[in-house]
Each structure stands twice: as structure tokens, then as C-alpha cells.
């Protein structure tokens, strides 16, 4: 479904991703793990069109999206739930969700999706007229996820979904992501919480300073001695 071939990304003179190749198959939940600065977020930005790659190519459903605009990529079916619970703080919950389906024109379907989101996230339904900036961190994360889902993506990108959340919300968030995959949406997730990510994913890639260090099923990586010592703390 999604394929990166020798992806290279640079910020000025610094090369953040050095020739990364990976594949995400339809229906999978794929995790991208690694330390800070390994190039995980950069990879996601390149996929979603926010950062034009310096080399290599990105393919989605057989289409070359390497140089496509963020708008085009979203309309092809890749939505991103960015790092740090990004919401539009002065817009209400409902308006935030409306922004999520900015490119859609099917009004009735949108209305149905609104109902579905409010059913799935009752907290958001209670606060639908509140500015998003007044929600708690966990609620903002729910909103960011719901907003990304409003574009009806085929592939969802999650950037550090558990970062900075209260423990009960961390678990909740991972449940939601598992659910999204169960409902047929493919997921590519960047996560620092390596154990949780490896336990829930079908396939995982380990990035180390911009290059692919290891890949395999979640279980394989958990059993790998290098991963155990460096990422799972024994």
C-alpha cells in the first residue's frame, strides 16, 4: 500500500533520513521505533507532504507521491495525527472536526461521520461547543485523532500518540489505534514507547540515526537482544 524507496530527507545541511526503504501492507499496523533524532517524525512529514524529500521516492497505491502537495496526499487517503496533540485552540470541537473533512463534499456522509465520532468519543460530544484549547491533554488527543478520521483515510499516520499523556489516556489511545486498524484502516505509527508499540503492531521497523537498523514482526523485535538492551531496558 505504502512504499518508501531510499528516502532521503535533509534540513539544510543535516541529513535526518539517510536512504530509508520500508513497506506498509494494506490492513497492517506498522510501528516505526527509535530514539529521539532517529528520523521517525521526519519520515512521517515526508509521507504526508509537509517536508519535500531530498531523494528517493514514496509510493502510495501505485502512485508516486514523492513531490505531491499535502492537500493531494490527503485526498488520496493519507491522514496524519501530528505529534503534540495539535488542535485549532480557538475553534470549537465541532469546528475542529469540520476542518478534518475540509476536502470532503459529501454532506450526508459527513453528518453520519460526525454522529459516529461523537458516539465513539462521548467526551467530545459533551464538549462539542467548547473551544478545543480548553480541553484536557487527553481530550485534545482524542480530538486530534477524531479530526484525522473525519477525512476517512485509508492510511493513518500517528506521530508519538502517547507522548505527554496521563497513563490512563495512554492505554485508551492505544486501544483506539487498535480499533482503527480493526475497522479496516491501515496504520503507520511512530512511537517512543517501544514495548507498547511492538506488542500491538504486525510489523515494525527500527530506525537508528536516519537508517534502517532492523525490521521484523513485533514479537521478533521484542526477542532481539539488541532491541532488548537498547530500547526495552533489559
Amino acid at each position, binding site marked *: 500500500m505504502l512504499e518508501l524507496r531510499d528516502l532521503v530527507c535533509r534540513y539544510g545541511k543535516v541529513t535526518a533520513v539517510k536512504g530509508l526503504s520500508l513497506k506498509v501492507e494494506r490492513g497492517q499496523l506498522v510501528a516505526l521505533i527509535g530514539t529521539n533524532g532517529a528520523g521517525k517524525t521526519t519520515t512521517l512529514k515526508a509521507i504526508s507532504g509537509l517536508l519535500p524529500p531530498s531523494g528517493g521516492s514514496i509510493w502510495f497505491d501505485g502512485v508516486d507521491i514523492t513531490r505531491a502537495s499535502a*492537500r493531494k496526499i490527503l485526498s488520496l487517503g493519507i491522514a496524519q495525527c501530528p505529534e*503534540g496533540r495539535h488542535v485549532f485552540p480557538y*475553534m470549537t470541537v465541532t469546528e475542529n472536526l*469540520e476542518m478534518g473533512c*475540509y476536502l470532503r463534499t459529501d454532506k450526508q456522509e459527513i453528518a453520519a461521520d460526525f454522529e459516529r465520532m461523537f458516539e465513539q468519543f462521548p467526551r467530545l460530544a459533551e464538549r462539542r461547543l467548547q*473551544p478545543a*484549547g*480548553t480541553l484536557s491533554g487527553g481530550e485534545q488527543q482524542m480530538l486530534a485523532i477524531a479530526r484525522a478520521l473525519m477525512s476517512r483515510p485509508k492510511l493513518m499516520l500517528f506521530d508519538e500518540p502517547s507522548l505527554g499523556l496521563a497513563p490512563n489516556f495512554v492505554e485508551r489511545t492505544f486501544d483506539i489505534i487498535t480499533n482503527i486498524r480493526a475497522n479496516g484502516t491501515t496504520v503507520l505509527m511512530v512511537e517512543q514507547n517501544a514495548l507498547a508499540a511492538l506488542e500491538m503492531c504486525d510489523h515494525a521497523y527500527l530506525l537508528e540515526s536516519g537508517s534502517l537498523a532492523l525490521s521484523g514482526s513485533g514479537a521478533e523485535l521484542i526477542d532481539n537482544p539488541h532491541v532488548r538492551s537498547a530500547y526495552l531496558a533489559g
Partner: protein
Amino acid sequence: MSRFLPWLLVVLLASVPFWMTDYYVLHIMITTCIFIIAAMSLNLLLGYTGQLSLGHVAFFGIGAYTSALLSLGFQVNVFNVPFGVTPKPVWFAMLMAVIVAGFTGWAIGKLAFRVRGAYFVIVSISFAEVVRMVAVNWVELTQGPMALNNIPALTLGTGEFELSFLRKPSFYSLALAVAVISYIIIARIVNSRAGRAMNALRENESLAMSVGIDVTRYLVIATIVSAAMAGMAGALYTHYIRIVDPDVFLFIYTVTMVIMVITGGKGTLAGPIVGGVIFGFVPEALRAMAIKPEIQWIIYGVLMILIVYFLPRGIVPAIERFWAGQKPGDDEAARSVPGALQK
């Protein structure tokens, strides 16, 4: 009722020339009206897309000069090639003023939105200064500081049906009509998909991009509309005052517009109007009270500081909040926004 109220206000304002016989008051109302149009155009950029253009007066001045030059006609040599324009009808000159200002806005938008924030502010200031220097120094075209004189007033139709906008009551109606149309245009934009896109990019640009908004496109659209509207205000000014010199490009006019927008409430439809009325009338009211000029400006300054200090988001949002039963300045949303989002 609340839908009906603004129109009642427009009708009331439209009736002014029928009972107001004091031409001095009418004059102030006209200049205030022109300033409000300019402030509304600035608000589209500053309030709705969050871009501070400190060169906004350039578009106003370009509109003023374009309209003046086309209605007077001119003859210049560009690299020894003579180029001349015969005097054109005033309505045509004004239309061209809007188009030329809008086009300039497009060019500046394309150029300046590669840089954002502080850089955009600097580009816009420099642009206004450059245009002013051209107006001062290209004497052949603009008469420089000697100014363009005897600019014709707007007339529509001919013979018996001629409508002249030379006298104050008729010109007031024209300015009011333009202001109402400008307001409607901005309201339409703001409440449309484009308006929501602008709102989104002001709040969080990278997020706006990731939900599929073509950020640069909407910034450029906003700049074009904003510049064209400021150009219209400039054209109105030209054919009202009927003399135009490089002082129309003075920085203080941009500052005045910014003050009107900020005190009234940026990002609100009524903000620039409220701000414009206050800062259009206050200096005149103080003068009418025969207060010494230096005291006038002190009062003006203190008033401004008080408004910004006590109503940081402007008068209109404060009134809205008051209506909704909240304390002014109580801004829950702003306070609980995570630090990472406050740029």
C-alpha cells in the same frame, strides 16, 4: 432582530445627508468612512489570516495615485520612449485603481509569503517606503511633493441624469455605499470555506496544511482582496480631497489603521468600524472642545493605552463577552492552550 439591526443602522446613516447641515461634521464622517474601509481591508489580513502588514498604506496610496493619474492623464518618457495616457472617466480610473492595487497585492503576496511573521512585516514596510520614494522622486509622473492638483470629482451619467459626487452630501452617500459593500464582501469571505481556511492557518499553520488547506493560496487571496479594497479607499480619498501628494504613503496612516483594527477587535467584522469611529471622531471631538493640541494628543494616547490594557482583544470581543455574561479579559481558551502551540 439582530439580523435587522445592522440594516437599521445603515438606513440611519444613509439618512444623515438629509438632516445634517453642518458640512464640517459631514467632512469628518466622510474621512472616517474612508479610513474605516481601509481598516476593514487591513483586518482581513491582520485579523483573519494573522499577517501584520505594516505597509498597508501602500495599497491605499497606489489606489489614490492610479485613480488621480488616469483621470488627469499623463505624459512620461520611460527610457526615452514617450508614453502617455489621455484623461479617462473617473469611474474608469477608480476601477483601474482597484485592479492595480489588487494586482500589486498579488505580487507582494507571492513575494512576501515565502517569508512569514517578522519578515513579512519588514517586507511590507519596505514596500510602502519604496512606493513613497517613487512618488516623491518621479516628478514627471507624480509631480513629486508639488502634488497632483485639480483631480476631477466622480460624475455618473450625462445631461439631465448626471449624478455628481462633488458636494459633500452626495460624496458621503458614495463613501457609505462603498463601505457597506466592502463590509458585505468581507463578511461573505469570512463566513465561507475560504474564511474557515484563513482562520485555521492563523491558529496553526502546519496543522492547516495537514488537513489539506492550500495555505499560500488563501494568503494570496486575502492579500489581493485586502489590497484592492484599500486601493478603492485610496481612490475615494483622491476624488474627495482632489489633491494627492506623497504624504498619502506616510507610515502614520498605516499605524492609524492598525490602531483602529486592534482597539476595535481584530478578527471581528465590527471591530474596524468601532475602532474607526472612535479614532476618527475622538481627535475631532477634542478639537471641538477647544482643548489645546498637545493635550488632545495626550488624551488620544492615554485612551489608546487604556483600551489595549483593559481590553486586550479589542472593544467588540469585550462587548460580546459582556453580553455572554463573562468578565472582559477572561480568556479561558488562550490560557489553557499548551505552550507548544503559542508561537
